[in-house]
């Protein structure tokens, strides 16, 4: 057992109202520069929908992530090292600006400088790339709230395996928002595909960063990342990505997207995992992926794990933080958070609590009581459409796992109602397979947790501050050794 720590995030999709505050504050902080106008380290997309960039989940087309070859070995879908170098002069699988969108600004000057006239002057959209007038025809989350869904959402790759009639009825069925950042994967495809070795995973907290001084613009990472969360800067021609706001988390502060989220739906904390189990977890067939990925995580309360973590160099305050981690609680202890597209096999570290609200709506529509665990469970069991869709997103197609998470969320709802009205019903807790105390703890974490409980981020150690600064600026005069899996 080799214990490693990883900063991870959980988002509770039930609470996301799709306001995009997170995207905007992130952009103001990180990508309000020339060359990255089209880049959203954090973006929010409507599901069902085709997302940003267009149909990013269509891996047969984009060739992102990993897959098992016929011998069961893990391979980048974009090909081996030789193939990658052979295609270095023109990468066949790279999205272009049109797959994202052409960023625009507005000709505000015209509002002031237009000559007097009977008509109000207008500010025409201008392309931020060419400076010319532009017809706005596409953008990130263009299909917001299922707008134009017959055109867009019908092409959502997550419909795979669902029947046509199911696809056509989705408009009346359900909708939710999916905020996305870089997953800071345990097995990052972007890192493995970078010919220069410029992208690296920090051993202390697992963040995946690009050394701007070492990136040579070979642009293979963009193809390899199945989440399309690493971008080319148009003017520097180097790769850039979500940094998990490292200057903030090093100081113990949550990321900008989490801090400004109006739904307060993001949780940040440490998970401990066993480096020795990573490879085996990646080699299992699709239907065991979530179980294998959950099985990677170690229980920081276990004395043997704690002792090994300290022996492997984890500072004691980091161990404490891991023990108080909301991520471990949501993903493992309560089992309500699930990884996004585990079948890409990058071991993503931003997990999601699937949305219960489509199910609640459906329960009510079926004439059931949407605060009764029984009715909801019945609806969950009967609701093939959202479940299969959610399973394609979060469990590589395993409907039971999604249903299990949703039923636990439903149990919290009905248990809390019966507690509030003074008539606790043991059936609620029995149905969810959780004790009353557990359901109440989950309720507190989901509904009333204060920032100190939602964000348990150990600050970097002052004695390491100078090293961290070099780490991230990649000071060329004082390079750090590149290590193999330590």
């Amino acid at each position, binding site marked *: 057992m080799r214990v490693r720590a990883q900063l991870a995030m959980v988002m509770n999709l039930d609470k996301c109202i799709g306001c995009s505050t997170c995207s905007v504050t992130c952009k103001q902080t990180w990508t309000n520069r020339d*060359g990255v106008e089209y880049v959203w380290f954090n973006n929010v997309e409507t599901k069902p929908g085709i997302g940003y960039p267009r149909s990013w989940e269509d891996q047969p087309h984009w060739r992102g992530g990993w897959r098992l070859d016929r011998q069961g070995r893990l391979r980048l879908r974009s090909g081996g*090292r*030789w193939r*990658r*170098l052979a295609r*270095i*002069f*023109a*990468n*066949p699988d*790279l*999205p*272009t*600006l049109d797959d994202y969108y052409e960023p625009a600004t507005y000709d505000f000057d015209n509002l002031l400088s237009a000559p007097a006239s009977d008509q109000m002057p207008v500010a025409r959209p201008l392309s931020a*790339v*060419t*400076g*010319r007038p532009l017809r706005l025809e596409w953008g990130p989350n263009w299909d917001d709230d299922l707008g134009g869904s017959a055109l867009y959402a019908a092409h959502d790759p997550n419909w795979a395996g669902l029947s046509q009639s199911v696809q056509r009825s989705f408009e009346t069925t359900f909708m939710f928002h999916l905020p996305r950042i870089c997953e800071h994967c345990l*097995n*990052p495809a972007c*890192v*493995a595909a*970078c*010919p*220069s*070795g410029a*992208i*690296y*995973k*920090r*051993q*202390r907290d697992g963040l995946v960063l690009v050394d*701007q*001084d*070492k*990136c*040579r*613009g*070979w*642009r293979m990472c963009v193809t390899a990342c199945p989440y399309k969360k690493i971008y*080319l800067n*148009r*003017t*520097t*021609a*180097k790769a850039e990505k979500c940094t998990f706001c490292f200057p903030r988390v090093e100081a113990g502060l949550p990321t900008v997207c989490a801090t400004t989220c109006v739904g307060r739906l993001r949780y940040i904390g440490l998970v401990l995992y066993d480096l020795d189990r990573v490879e085996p977890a990646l080699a299992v067939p699709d239907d065991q992926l979530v179980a294998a990925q959950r099985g990677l995580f170690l229980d920081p309360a276990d004395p043997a794990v704690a002792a090994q973590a300290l022996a492997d160099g984890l500072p004691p305050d980091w161990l404490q933080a891991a023990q108080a981690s909301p991520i471990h609680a949501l993903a493992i202890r309560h089992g309500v958070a699930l990884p996004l597209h585990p079948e890409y096999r990058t071991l993503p570290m931003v997990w999601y609590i699937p949305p219960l609200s489509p199910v609640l709506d459906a329960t009510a529509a079926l004439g059931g009581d949407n605060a009764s665990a029984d009715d909801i469970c019945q609806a969950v069991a009967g609701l093939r459409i959202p479940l299969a869709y959610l399973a394609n997103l979060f469990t590589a197609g395993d409907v039971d796992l999604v249903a299990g998470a949703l039923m636990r969320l439903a149990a919290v709802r009905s248990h809390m109602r019966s507690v509030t009205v003074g008539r606790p019903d043991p059936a609620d807790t029995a149905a969810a397979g959780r004790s009353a105390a557990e359901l109440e703890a989950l309720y507190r974490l989901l509904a009333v947790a204060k920032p100190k409980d939602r964000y348990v981020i150990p600050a970097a150690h002052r004695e*390491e501050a100078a*090293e*961290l600064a070099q*780490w991230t600026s*990649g000071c*060329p005069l004082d390079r*750090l*050794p*590149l*290590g*193999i*899996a*330590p």
Partner: protein
Amino acid sequence: MSTILFGVWPYLAGAVCLVGHVWRWRFDQFGWTSRTSQLMEKRWLAIGSPLFHLGALMVIGGHALGLLVPASATRAVGLSDHAYHLVAVGGGVAAGAVFAAGAVILTIRRFLSRARFRLSNRPADLVMYALLGITAGFGLGGTLVLNAFGQGYDYRPTIAVWFRGLFVLDPRPELMAAAPWPYQVHVLAALALIAWWPFTRLVHVWSVPLGYLIRPPIVYRRPPS
């Protein structure tokens, strides 16, 4: 005059190239990149860039063979001068054609998508494209006119000897001064390109990522202990 052009300028260009690279490497790691523009346009690049690069590597290889290997060496291995001439002109024209085809496609691409490139073109690179164009144009043009269709010009006792002389510090500018003028322009422009090289995107050539083939897949960084 010819002493300056063909005796001094080569060393000056080489020195600027060397010092320029050291300076750029030391102070501008951030600017050291292929400056990929595939994000802007992908279809033309998919054809043009591989052709251009294949051609460029063939052309560089051909120059190394033609200029560095003396006539006595090819004769010693039993290659007749006539056979050598056929191989050299044939190979050279083929390499030049691939290179030129790629370059033309890339140029058309830059023209067709010029609106998108407008703000990301760097002046240093534009100068480089011009130098590259002049060098390639006069090199390929000279070879076609003089060698393939004309009565032939043997560069091996002249230009090649001048070129090798530069490396053993025995410059013989008069040899180059006697060469046909298209080759003189070719050489002068090539020297300018070499001098200008470190200040352009061409530095990417030195970063061919061969180390990638033997590196462990996931790169970790840790603080030094």
